[in-house]
């Protein structure tokens, strides 16, 4: 079953995926099916240890499944070669992590600009990368002077997360993947942060897949999924 066969266009589609981590402890994951429709915001509930990091790595093409089908932005990423997959990720996906998102020694501006270095398409979409980076930062409530001069390490956690959002959004990738982006923020900051994120994602018409253990965030998403319904994880400690 491919994206076209499902009727709706999927930004992310996985089916029959098997993954095995050969290190210690041994770790296996099976994913029957996961579909994230294009242009929607999807909340994926997952406790730590539920395999969500592995799931995201599979979607981003950093880990390779032993079997199954993974389609991102209409393309089969399993059959891609390593370098092509890295390039594809750079072009199509913006990633936001929970913490330590940024290169601490680089300025906020350089952090935002970094993905463009690896994604010619995204670079083409914003010829004035610097201007676009500052515009995004401004929209996310980061003053220009701060973005240009301050090292990421000197920013507050909330500011860092907004820089990470700007980095994920620059050059308008189709898919934004966020892994616990709010866990380091307090409740008020979480709401403000999600407001900004949603606003920008909607403006771009991008697909958002946000993974969190915090069900309270789920309300405003188009769809809500639980990783336990999607993935089966087996661990052998022997």
């Amino acid at each position, binding site marked *: 079953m491919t994206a076209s066969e499902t009727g709706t266009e999927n930004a992310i589609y996985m089916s029959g995926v098997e993954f095995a981590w050969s290190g210690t402890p041994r770790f296996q994951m099976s994913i029957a099916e996961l579909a994230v429709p294009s242009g929607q915001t999807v909340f994926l509930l997952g406790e730590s240890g539920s395999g969500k990091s592995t799931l*995201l*790595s599979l979607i*981003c093409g950093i880990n390779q499944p032993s079997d199954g089908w993974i389609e991102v932005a209409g393309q089969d990423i399993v059959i891609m070669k390593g370098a092509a997959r*890295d*390039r594809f990720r750079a072009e199509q996906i913006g990633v936001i992590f929970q913490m330590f998102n940024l290169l*601490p020694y*680089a300025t906020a501006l350089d952090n935002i*600009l*970094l993905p463009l270095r690896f994604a010619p398409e995204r670079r083409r979409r914003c010829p004035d990368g610097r201007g676009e980076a500052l515009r995004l930062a401004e929209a996310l409530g980061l003053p220009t002077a701060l973005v240009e001069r301050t090292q990421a390490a000197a920013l507050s956690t909330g500011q860092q997360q907004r820089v990470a959002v700007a980095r994920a959004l620059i050059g308008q990738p189709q898919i934004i993947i966020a892994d616990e982006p709010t866990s380091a923020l307090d409740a008020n900051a979480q709401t403000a942060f999600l407001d900004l994120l949603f606003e920008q994602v909607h403006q771009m018409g991008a697909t958002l897949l946000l993974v969190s253990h915090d069900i309270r965030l789920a309300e405003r998403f188009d769809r809500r999924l639980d990783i336990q319904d999607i993935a089966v994880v087996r661990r052998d400690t022997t």
Partner: protein
Amino acid sequence: MILLRLAIRSLFSRRFTVGLTVFAIALSVALFLGVEKVRTGARTSFADTISGTDLIVGARTGGVQLLLYSVFRIGNATNNIGWDSYQQIAARPEVDWIVPISLGDSHRGFRVMGTSAEYFARYRYRGGRSLEFAKGAGLEDLFDTVIGADVARDLGYRIGDPIVVSHGLASFTEHDDKPFRVAGILQKTGTPVDRTVIVGLEAISAIHLDWKNGARSANPLSADEVRAMDLAPDSITAAMLGVKSRMQVFRLQRDINEFGAEPLLAILPGVALQELWQIVGVAESALVGVSAMVVATALLGMAAMIFAGLNERRREMAIFRSVGARPGVILGMLMLEALLIALAGALLGLALLYLGLVVARPWVDAAFGLYLPLTAPGRFEASWIGVIVLAGGLVGLFPAIRAYRMSLADGMTVRN
């Protein structure tokens, strides 16, 4: 560009460890280039000291030894040449010019050399340059002296100052009854001449006439009495000569080496200098080898530093991967880092070398008579810095490969 900027910022954020590593490389590079500088400086300095002389004649000894004591005033003659022999050689038809040299006395640590007036006309250094007077003129009176630039500078002598020659090279007995007068001061040559007190050959005889067995005799002669006497020497230390035709050098050399009256040795300065290089070559190679090992050690230290930092930087690599950097980019970034450290170290080392040269040059010149030319870094330095930076990049390959493997295994998530 952004990657280079990030690499530099990353290094700067670790400036203490990186700085120490850069400094270690800088010291090793300064040492390495410095050894080479001194080595070539010494060679040119030696080679520049004598030019235009076809043969040096002395008592039979080693060729290198004769060269060292006659030209460089290093070591002492084991024996002298009889004045008769000297005159016989001087009378040979092949000889264009000949200059006698008589060594053995000193003045406050500087060697005194007796010679003829022709010395000033015949002596050539650094590719044919002649001696020139900075002040005064040549030897006129019996007790006139011409001093080298360093002698004048170190002892503060001016024209007309009196000089008392000491007997031997390190003694407290002085020829104070027959003082000399500074008649001329030579310009700086960068050769042992700068550190020499030159007097007439007759003057050497004159101050020794009333000496017997290294001590003053019971009835000394006054300076005026001496002037009236026959001052032809009994013997001299060595002689420098030029031939009329280069073709005759080897025959004359052979004839002198087979001289009947006494055992003599004639050497071609260039050949003796080559022998000298062969002797010191081993030590030179050892020195170059050791300093090269120091550079290698500093570069390995850099690799160790990068290795040690890798684990803390896994998060950083994961970020690069997440924005689409291939593992190859991680590899390249770490090699770039090593290259930058090595380059900074090499350039700082070069700066240290020149700083050291500027500071130490007068001292090296005074202490060893070694004139180190302060030339701009040339192809030699450039190519070695290139080699060192490349070696740095190569050494950086080891931590880079490890980072590559780590980033492949970690992906976007870091298990810590």
